[in-house]
């Protein structure tokens, strides 16, 4: 055990931090893009507060198109764009853009469905009291949807952790890469098992955290 750790400890710790870093940064940016996009989708859809067919169908189609492409292909497809925007296509910096492009539309969808779940009657009640649309979005729709939104973000985060495993292909490192490089290519199965266990714990922890938080926000 100790022996294993002296040999692999630094590699595993480093990979662990890389995974967290990639997940954290891309998650933050994806939320910043995905959440407003989700709100816009809800507002511009038919019968929404700011119905706009053109906007809705364009965004809707783009999201569907991106969501159809497997991450591993997206990673390579975006290489030129990444190079132009970030300056490099390798390392953690190089993988953030593809991860965001992959996750943001997913979050937008999850947020959209969470927001759509909010009781239309409540929104109407607030409209009838002369409350402005902006205030209704913040203080009624988002507040009522918080719990479902948290669960959605949990799902997105776990999906994102999965996607980071492929980041090794562009030299970004991370746990997935470690398991693949050592466990598979260099035939060190123990490393792979350990990485898998760490990933399981990580995902479990995320899900539990999300569930607890969501339950706390839910009052019915």
């Amino acid at each position, binding site marked *: 055990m100790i022996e294993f750790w002296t040999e692999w400890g630094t590699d595993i710790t480093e990979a662990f931090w890389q995974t967290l870093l990639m997940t954290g940064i891309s998650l933050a940016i994806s939320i910043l893009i995905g959440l407003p996009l989700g709100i816009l989708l809800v507002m511009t859809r038919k019968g929404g507060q700011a119905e706009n067919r053109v906007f809705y169908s364009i965004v809707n189609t783009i999201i569907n198109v991106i969501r159809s492409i497997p991450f591993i292909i997206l990673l390579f497809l975006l290489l030129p764009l990444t190079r132009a925007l970030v300056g490099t296509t390798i390392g953690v910096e190089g993988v953030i853009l593809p991860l965001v492009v992959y996750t943001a539309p997913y979050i937008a969808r999850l947020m959209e469905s969470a927001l759509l779940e909010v*009781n239309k*009657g*409540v929104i*109407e*009640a*607030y*409209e*009838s*009291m*002369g*409350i*402005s649309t902006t*205030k209704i979005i913040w*203080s*009624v729709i988002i*507040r*009522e949807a*918080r*719990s479902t939104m948290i669960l959605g973000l949990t799902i997105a985060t776990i999906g994102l952790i999965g996607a980071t495993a492929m980041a090794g292909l562009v030299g970004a490192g991370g746990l997935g890469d470690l398991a693949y490089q050592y466990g598979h290519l260099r035939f060190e199965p123990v490393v792979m098992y350990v990485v898998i266990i760490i990933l399981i714990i990580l995902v479990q922890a995320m899900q539990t955290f999300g569930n607890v938080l969501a339950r706390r*926000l*839910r*009052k*019915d």
Partner: protein
Amino acid sequence: MIELKNVSKTFTTGKKKVEALKDVSLKINKGEIYGVIGFSGAGKSTLIRCANLLERPTEGEVFIDGVDLTKLKKWQLRKARGKIGMIFQHFNLLSTATVYENVARPLKLSKVPKHEIKERVDKYLKIVGLEEKKNVYPAQLSGGQKQRVAIARALAQEPEVLLSDEATSALDPNTTSSILELLLRVNKELGITIFLITHELDVIQRICDRVGVMHHGELVEEGSVIDVFTKPQHPQTRKFVFDDANFQVPDSVKKGLSATGRLVSLTFIGEASNEPFLAAITKKFEVVPSILAGGIDQLKASSVGKLLIHLQGDPAEVEKAISYLESQHVTVEEVAS
């Protein structure tokens, strides 16, 4: 206070056009409780939603306190809506906020000063009798209590008008009664004009001053509750009034009885319901009345008694008995068999 002028509303879904409201005009006076009754699909829900422009009429004007809402800009409409409270069939409370928060949040969003918010919330929660449940979430409340929170929320805006969209339709009879009592108090003590829609005749009877009957998007009859209730003109109104009065005598029974005499319904208003008319006609004329169904309904302003009777006897005598009853201010109507 509220006036709808030639309001029409057409919904278009694809190529299908549905005329939910056809040229409806009505006027509700300050301080009164006006009810619109109709079966589902009659357009009453669309009608009440036009009163605060939750539904914008395709044609026509909506005046609240003399101001035509349809002509207002968005921000002006928002301000005008502050004067119009609304309650709903399904309460429409925030599920993630406490009772207190549910009443307070709209006030915060409408920029009511902080100290005033607390005052108002406490005041109106007291009026609806829920001050003890302040920190409870809606999920822990009964339907009636939820509606009370919704009423407190609407009242806390200090409106001049309260719109009630089937507010008691999701409640059991006892709870309905207590909510109706509350609405009556709101009307009397706070002087708030109430415009309500319902499919329950009972609601109209108990709290309304005037009533309108909707059928297929049209207001087919209108008047004081007593008039409409005792002398219904339109077939739709008669349906409401007679269905309610337990006059559901099986057709086979009616047929048998009309062979041996006449089947009539009697309606008495107020004091008249206490007089022993049937005893009087048996003494004065050669008729044998038998009671098939009957009851007394308490309206807001008066009580109304209804009887379905069978009059057996010589046709001329029966005719005399009927004339006598009419002379005593009893409304007599032949019941079709």
